[in-house]
């Protein structure tokens, strides 16, 4: 859900005056998308959750400097991506052992939430499992990409941002974004095919 321009301006004014209720609304409004971006970028749920909280803390600190040159959502995604890239570098330095979040099928919402999907609702449980396996492979291959490629791929293909928004978030020119995206997709396809081929063997 996006805010209208006038509504957004009023909302930003409330944020700038450090209105706690406005920040509550902001977090509720953007937490899901921010979390998804971070989860796809970091590949770890615990890291993504912590980083999502950090994103909103940074928004709180810096909202006074937001000039409204871009949409509020784009600005928030930029903060998320920058924090995420720093985190990836830090984790790489620490050689953190990747915890494969996608093995934890029990944590999947349809399985865990009381109001979620029950076995009766799933037409083909084998399709569900196949889908999860494919998702796991794809996510694992996304994690193999360099952060710069991963960033454009996640924002465009997972979060469906427009090219214009993509340029604003990454700070890259249009041509660079498109070529980087094309290369990221090609690398991902290659990695997935290789992995799926290995599994078939």
């Amino acid at each position, binding site marked *: 859900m996006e805010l209208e321009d006038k509504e957004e301006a009023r909302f930003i004014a409330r944020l700038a005056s450090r209105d706690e209720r406005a920040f509550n609304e902001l977090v509720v409004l953007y*937490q899901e998308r921010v979390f998804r971006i971070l989860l796809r970028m970091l590949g770890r749920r615990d890291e993504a*959750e912590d980083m999502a909280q950090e994103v909103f803390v940074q928004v709180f600190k810096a909202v006074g400097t937001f000039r409204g040159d871009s949409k509020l959502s784009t600005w928030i995604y930029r903060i998320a991506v920058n924090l995420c890239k720093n985190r990836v570098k830090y984790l790489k330095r620490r050689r953190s052992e990747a915890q494969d979040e996608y093995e934890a099928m029990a944590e999947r919402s349809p399985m865990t939430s009381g109001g979620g999907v029950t076995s009766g609702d799933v037409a083909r449980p084998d399709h569900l499992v196949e*889908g999860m396996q494919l998702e796991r492979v794809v996510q694992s291959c996304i994690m193999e990409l360099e952060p710069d490629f991963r960033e454009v791929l996640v924002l465009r*293909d997972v979060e469906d941002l427009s090219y214009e928004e993509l340029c604003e978030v990454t700070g890259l020119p249009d041509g660079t974004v498109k070529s980087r995206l094309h290369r990221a997709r090609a690398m*991902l396809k290659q990695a997935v095919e290789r992995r799926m081929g290995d599994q078939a063997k």
Partner: protein
Amino acid sequence: MSEVPEDSEELAAELRTALKGGGAGPAPPDVLAGFQRKLRERSGGKFYEDGWSTSRHPPKSTYLITSLMMLAVLGLIYALLAPLSGEPVPVENMPQPVQIISPRPQ
């Protein structure tokens, strides 16, 4: 390169489908509570204050207000109950005054 090839867009569509997996995607956590906690701690209780977890000194004003309120409540109770108590009930079986009988002269 100014345009992304069409087959690349098809690949993107396949990617989106794949990442949806078998279900609705990963359940998002409750970010709000963690955000409020972090901000409360880092601002020393200035924001999202809960009145106790971040207070560094005993709240003196709270003690004073509590004392004054207790005094006010006691005063109110006294004011309400005092008229009901009425005059002290006289005790009827008061002991007779002692008569001192002087001894008869012999």
